[in-house]
């Protein structure tokens, strides 16, 4: 176990380094933006009528408040220190709302939308893929091109099409938002039912894509496993199809588990555009707003949250996978 821990700390070091580089990129890249976002912000806040004197004062106070008058390395250190305190700064466009506040309100919506879609889609997709590999013949030849087609429709195109079909044409679902405008988020039955109505359409658009992708992956893995020597040997010893299917399923599943972990990790940033299509109040929609208004604390905050989720998920994969697959466990120990 000791060596396993050693392996994990090694991995951890690497992830911490990656995290720092991600923070660095996150801080640095938006500063290449030509022009000054603060002047845009000031102009927007002041409207058309303010005198240049007032504008100047407002401008200077913002520059100081955001620390933009200091050299970039001081800004960077301040930024890193703040990030470590969980402070992502203040939004330009929704001044003086904190980015933390915006994102922490957005995150649950994103997760609530994505996590069930990924999990359920993953389960159904894997079952269908294994079935296609196992049944072969007609089922497979009908199923495979269909799965491939669904998988190759970009998820946001599917979202738009579903939105139009069920939201506009058939008018069975609301066409946007996480809940109706007139309601205030609460745990009342009316609100939950309303939220569910808004939920279903984006959910379906996501789950269909997940099913398609997972099914294709699982089918390929299963076909590969079905042709291995150990399956033949088991057949030669008279082992039943049922048991062999279990072996194959388990072994084909292992890479799929990584797939699940990766989709869960990329979940936060995985369906930005679905949210935009449905104006769903998650990270994607806020990031979209941030981009349109050049609100770079918000953009940075959003991308940082996405990156952190991915890093965390990758680290978890390394831990879990080492426990699940004996071969990997062995390889890790030897490193």
């Amino acid at each position: 176990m000791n060596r396993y821990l050693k392996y994990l700390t090694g991995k951890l070091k690497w992830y911490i380094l990656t995290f720092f580089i991600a923070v660095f990129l996150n801080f640095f890249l938006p500063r290449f933006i030509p022009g000054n976002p603060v002047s845009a912000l000031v102009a927007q806040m002041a409207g058309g009528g303010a005198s240049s004197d007032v504008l100047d004062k407002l401008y200077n106070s913002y520059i100081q408040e955001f620390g933009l008058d200091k050299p970039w390395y001081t800004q960077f250190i301040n930024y890193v220190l703040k990030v470590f305190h969980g402070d992502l700064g203040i939004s330009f466009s929704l001044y003086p709302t904190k980015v933390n506040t915006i994102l922490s309100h957005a995150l649950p919506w994103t997760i609530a939308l994505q996590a069930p879609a990924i999990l359920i889609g993953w389960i159904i997709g894997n079952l269908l893929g294994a079935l296609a590999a196992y049944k072969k013949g007609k089922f497979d030849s009908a199923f495979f091109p269909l799965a491939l087609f669904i998988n190759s429709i970009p998820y946001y195109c599917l979202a738009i099409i579903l939105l139009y079909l069920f939201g506009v044409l058939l008018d069975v679902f609301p066409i946007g938002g996480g809940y109706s405008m007139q309601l205030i988020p609460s745990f009342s039955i009316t609100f939950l039912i309303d939220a569910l109505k808004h939920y279903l359409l984006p959910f379906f658009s996501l789950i269909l894509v997940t099913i398609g992708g997972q099914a294709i992956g699982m089918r390929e893995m299963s076909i590969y496993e079905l042709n291995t020597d150990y399956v033949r040997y088991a057949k030669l010893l008279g082992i039943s199809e049922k048991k062999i299917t279990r072996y194959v399923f388990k072994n084909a599943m292992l890479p799929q588990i990584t797939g699940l972990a990766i989709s869960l990790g990329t979940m936060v940033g995985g369906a930005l555009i679905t949210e935009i299509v449905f104006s769903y109040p998650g990270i994607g929609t806020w990031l979209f707003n941030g981009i349109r208004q050049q609100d770079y604390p918000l953009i940075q905050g959003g991308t940082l949250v996405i990156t952190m989720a991915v890093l965390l998920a990758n680290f978890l994969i390394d831990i879990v996978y080492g426990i699940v697959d004996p071969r990997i466990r062995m390889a890790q120990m030897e490193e």
Partner: protein
Amino acid sequence: MKLLKTLLKSKKFIIGLCVFLLLLFGSLIFTTISSHDPAEMIGFLYEPPSKEHLLGTDNFGRDVLIELIYGMKTSIYVGLLSGIIATFIGTTIGTTAGYLGKTIDNILNSITNLFLVIPSFVILILLSVSLRSRSLTLLAMIIGITSWPWTARAVRAQTSSLKTREHVNMAKLNGEGYVEIVLKEILPYMLSYIFMVFVLQVASGILSEAGLSMLGLGPSNTISLGKMLSWALLYEAVRTGAWWAFIPPALTIAIITFSLLYMNTGMDEVFNPRLRS
């Protein structure tokens, strides 16, 4: 030659290739011979399809069909260019790391892993945000630069296994140098694989462009399929039921990516016969 001959045995590959080439050359030929300006406002906002405008007009009163053809051209252009860049970078880094090994491999491998873990879409967003003016070519380059790591990793793995082959040793004993060996003894063996990767990179480049466009980070002053979708969303085409403004570009993106993925599946079946049940 042998490669091509085997490929032509796959129906899936041929169907995918034909659809893709049809769309590519269709849009190329149309945009060269036609005198239409896709940005010209020829009608009112969201006019439904009619004889003059087969797919109606968009939010600015422009002809959707003509926009669609121009958008198709830009999308395919971005896809191809970013695909070429990503495949080139990935193959170069992968073969260098895999063949030279040791310190250079360690450095390149760490860089690759870094890019693999930090989501490329995030880098893409941050880079695009930092640019005021985004030309098509610049956008394609950015997409290419952020999407090479998977290729590099796979190519590196294949190179480090190929370099232990005996014909590589033979080439060394013939006095051949590093570049010659990579080009002559290693790359040909990966050609089919690299081609498959390239096709996938083209598809993902097209999707990335569309995604960026919908986030409001699309190419400046150009029509692309993603920008058409983005306009349709921003200007309430969905709510007003103007299906002609968004269904055609959405379907076109889907058909292009499907044709590319279908090509890829066909190639996979030819090159990895184990998958044929």
